[in-house]
């Protein structure tokens, strides 16, 4: 499998897209540090970029990459290689390169300017979000044969988790605001990886109260460290479950 990873890795680096992604993140992080001297505020602004841009790039890049390496996958499957090894090789190399790009792009400016514990948490949530959306992208890629359709599904995932879901949540809270909703919202938040990442960040920054009632309740219910631990484990499920479904589907797919 390491040999396969080596070839896929090489192929990804050749497209230069990863390089542009790193540069983009690097430039925006540098710019934010230039604009504001307070590292805490910079991390908060970066959080908004990370929550929108990282999932979008991860999911679209992965889907396009999967379809572009269809020939390679087809070639490998006629060889004495396990299907699962090919699939996991693809997953590992794509997620590794996206994570390295993210860590380099955001991490290097942070190292230079310093950002403390909250910056480390920001790097951590970015990596986790990358892994989640790469998993979702692989799921959407194996669900259909058509490249355009798969990118459509991938974008739908992103829209849903970044924009639509929050709207729905708000609607639920407004409609049923006569009832005690703390536990319900808590559960509902677990169904959105982007929200979970945001909560980890807010708990770390100790400004969960800014998120209103739910945030305050979240902090009270879990306490900061347990809350972070809990959200992280749910996020790990968000990585594993889509990947597992995708792997099972791929193992039975006709090529």
């Amino acid at each position: 499998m390491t040999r396969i990873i080596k070839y896929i890795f090489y192929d990804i680096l050749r497209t230069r897209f990863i390089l542009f992604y790193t540069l983009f993140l690097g430039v925006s992080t540098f710019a934010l540090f230039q604009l504001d001297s307070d590292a805490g505020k910079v991390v908060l602004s970066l959080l908004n970029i990370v929550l929108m841009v990282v999932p979008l790039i991860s999911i679209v890049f992965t889907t396009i990459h999967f379809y572009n390496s269809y020939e390679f996958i087809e070639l490998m499957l006629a060889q004495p290689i396990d299907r699962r090894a090919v699939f996991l090789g693809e997953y590992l190399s794509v997620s590794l390169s996206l994570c390295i790009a993210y860590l380099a792009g955001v991490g290097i400016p942070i190292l230079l300017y310093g950002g403390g514990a909250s910056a480390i948490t920001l790097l951590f949530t970015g990596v986790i979000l990358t892994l989640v959306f790469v998993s979702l992208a692989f799921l959407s890629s194996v669900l259909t044969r058509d490249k355009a359709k798969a990118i459509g599904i991938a974008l739908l995932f992103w829209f849903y988790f970044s924009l639509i879901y929050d709207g729905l949540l708000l609607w639920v809270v407004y409609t049923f605001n006569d009832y005690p909703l703390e536990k319900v919202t808590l559960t509902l938040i677990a169904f959105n990886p982007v929200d979970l990442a945001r909560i980890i960040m807010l708990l770390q920054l100790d400004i969960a109260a800014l998120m209103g009632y739910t945030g305050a309740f979240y902090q009270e219910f879990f306490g900061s460290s347990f809350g972070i631990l809990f959200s992280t484990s749910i996020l790990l499920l968000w990585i594993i479950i889509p990947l597992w479904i995708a792997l099972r589907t791929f193992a039975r797919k006709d090529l």
Partner: protein
Amino acid sequence: MISLKNINKKFGRLQVLDDVTLDLSSGKSYALIGPNGSGKTTLIKSILGMVIPTSGELTFDGKSIFNDWKYREKIGYMPQIGHYPDNMKIGQLIDMMKNIRKDYTKVDEDLIDSFKLFKMYDKPLHTLSGGTRQKVSAALAFLFRPPVLILDEPTAGLDPVSTEILKEKILHEKQLGKMIMISSHILSDLDELATDVVYIFEGKVQYNNTLEALKEETSELRLGKAIAMLIRQKELLASVTE
């Protein structure tokens, strides 16, 4: 060596393979014949594990191929249309194929030499013509000296000289006692190469016997005419029974 038992494959509502039962044994070379869309490529891909049958059993040397991949090191496969990573060069591709197999002993580079592929090692694969692509596919299929060769329309798109080179090579491998399966529409080629004929139509195996038997049954000397006769006989039979 390879045995298929009641293999069915459906793509949605379309039945591509319909209760296919076949026994392929080593030392024989099979001509897989049938009209376009009759299920030849699906049959080949099922043997390679690239298409997963809806039902049925498929064994290689007595072991089921489902959830197995190790057996593929004994198969050299030449696809009908070779799809290769676009940005790779021929040399890189061949190196990669060697690299991902750990336990090959000695590679067979006869075809690389006779097709003069080493001269084009620096050519990216997306610039290749259909014929050159076909040469690369052929060279890769023979590279690891596999005991089983599965060739899906090997001579389609090749120039006459290359066709002869490839046929010579297949004959040579046949004399070594390998199991060979060739699907093709060029029946005159198969006449020289095959020992057995498998005729498949609408996903069903309509005929499976030795080449001599087919020629005797139809009292024709050439495979092309024999097959035409066979189809006519079948049609006649069908119209009578209706």
